[in-house]
C-alpha cells in the first residue's frame, strides 16, 4: 500500500468526504456539549459547512450529478445567513430577559 494511493489528486472525492465528516463531527460535538447558545450556533455552522462540502464535492466529481449540488450549496449558504440572523436576534432576546445566553434558561414552555 502506497501513500500516493490516498492522495488528493488520486481520490479527490474521498478526501473531501472524509474532511467533511471530520468537520461534521466537530460540529456535532460542539452542539452536544455546549450550553451557550452562541457556541451551539457555531456548531450548527460547522455542520452546515460540512454538508456544503459534500454538496459541492458530489456535484464536481461525479459527472452524473450535474450542477445541482453547486446550486444547493449556494442555497445552503443563503439559508445559513437567514438562520444566523434570526437565531442571533433570539439569543439577544434571551440575554435581555434572563441575563444569560444559555439554552437551559429559556424553559418556560416546559411547565
Amino acid at each position: 500500500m502506497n501513500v500516493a494511493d490516498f492522495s488528493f489528486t488520486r481520490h479527490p472525492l474521498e478526501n473531501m468526504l472524509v474532511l467533511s465528516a471530520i468537520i461534521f463531527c466537530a460540529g456535532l460535538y460542539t452542539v452536544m456539549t455546549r450550553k451557550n447558545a452562541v457556541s451551539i450556533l457555531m456548531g450548527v455552522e460547522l455542520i452546515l459547512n460540512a454538508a456544503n462540502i459534500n454538496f459541492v464535492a458530489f456535484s464536481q466529481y461525479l459527472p452524473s450529478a450535474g450542477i445541482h449540488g453547486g446550486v444547493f450549496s449556494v442555497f445552503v449558504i443563503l439559508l445559513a445567513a437567514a438562520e444566523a440572523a434570526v437565531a442571533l436576534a433570539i439569543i439577544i432576546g434571551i440575554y435581555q430577559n434572563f441575563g444569560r445566553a444559555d439554552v437551559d434558561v429559556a424553559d418556560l414552555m416546559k411547565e
Partner: protein
Amino acid sequence: MGTEELLLNVVFYLFAIGAVVASIAVALSTNIIRSAFALLGVLFGVAAMYAFMRADFVVAAQIIIYVGGILVLIIFAVMLTHKITDVNVSNESAPGPAAVFAVLCVLFALCVIIATRTWDRSAPAESLTSMEKLAGDTKPTTAMVNVTLLQGDGTTGVLKGGEVRSPFVVLRYEVTQAPSTAEAAHFALECSERIENQPDEKKRWAPWSPVKETTVGLTNGLGTRDERLSNLKPGRYRWTASFVGGQGTLALAGGKPWTIEGTTFTVEAGLTRPLGVALMSRYLLPFELISVLLLAALVGAAYIARKEVKEL
C-alpha cells in the same frame, strides 16, 4: 507523481489540516472568543476546499456571506451577550466522555461508508465516442478501440453536452480488442480550438498549438493509454483522432485512414456561468422563494431584537 500534482497535494493537505485543527478548536476551546476566531479559520479552510473543487462562485459566496456576514454577526452576538472576562462556556452537565465516544462512533461509521461505497463515476453515455461508430463504413477488422474524454483528474467523465470544468482533460484510448500483434499502429491526435467571431466557416476551427498532433503508440496490444492535454483556456474545442502509420487493415481500411470525429467539448472557466444559468432557469422558483425568505428573516430579526416600546 509529477511536480504539479505533488504541489497540489501538499497545498490541499495544508488547508485540510488547518480546517480540521480549527474545527476541533471550535469544539474544544473554553474561550468563546477563541471559538469564534477558530470558526474564521474553518470558514477560510472550507473556502479553500471549494477552490480545490473549482467551484469559484461558491468560494466567493462563502467568503462574502459566511466570513463577511455570518461570522461578524456571531462575533457581535458574543460581544453583546458576554463580558470579555466571562469565558466559562462549557456545559457542566455535559457528558464529556460520552459525547466524545458518540462523536467518534459517528466519525468511524462515516469513514467506513466513504471507504466501502463505490460511487457511480460513469459519464453520461453521449459523451463517449468509440471506434464502433467508425467501423460501419470500413471493412470489418478485429481492432476495437474506445476513445473516452475524461476530466483532468482521470476519475470523472465529461459532463452532459461535452462540458469540461477543469483546465486539463485526458483522452483515454482503450484497446479492447487488438489487431495482430505484429501490426504497428499509431494514433494521431489533433485538437482544435473554435475561434469565435470568425465569419469564414473554414477558418473557424484552428489547430490548437500546444498539442497539435500527438502520436500514441498502440503496438503493445490490449491496454489503456492516457493522453493529457493541459492548460486549456476556456472555450470550445473539438478533437479528431486517426490511425496513421502501420501497415495493412488497421491503417488503411477501404483506402482511407481511420478517423474518429471526436465530441466537441467546452472548457468552462469555472462554476459561475453554469450556476447563473441554472439559477435563472430550472431553479428560478427556489431562488425567488429564498429571496422572500431572506426578506422575512430580515424583518423578523429586526422585530425580535428591537427594544420594547411601552404604549402610554
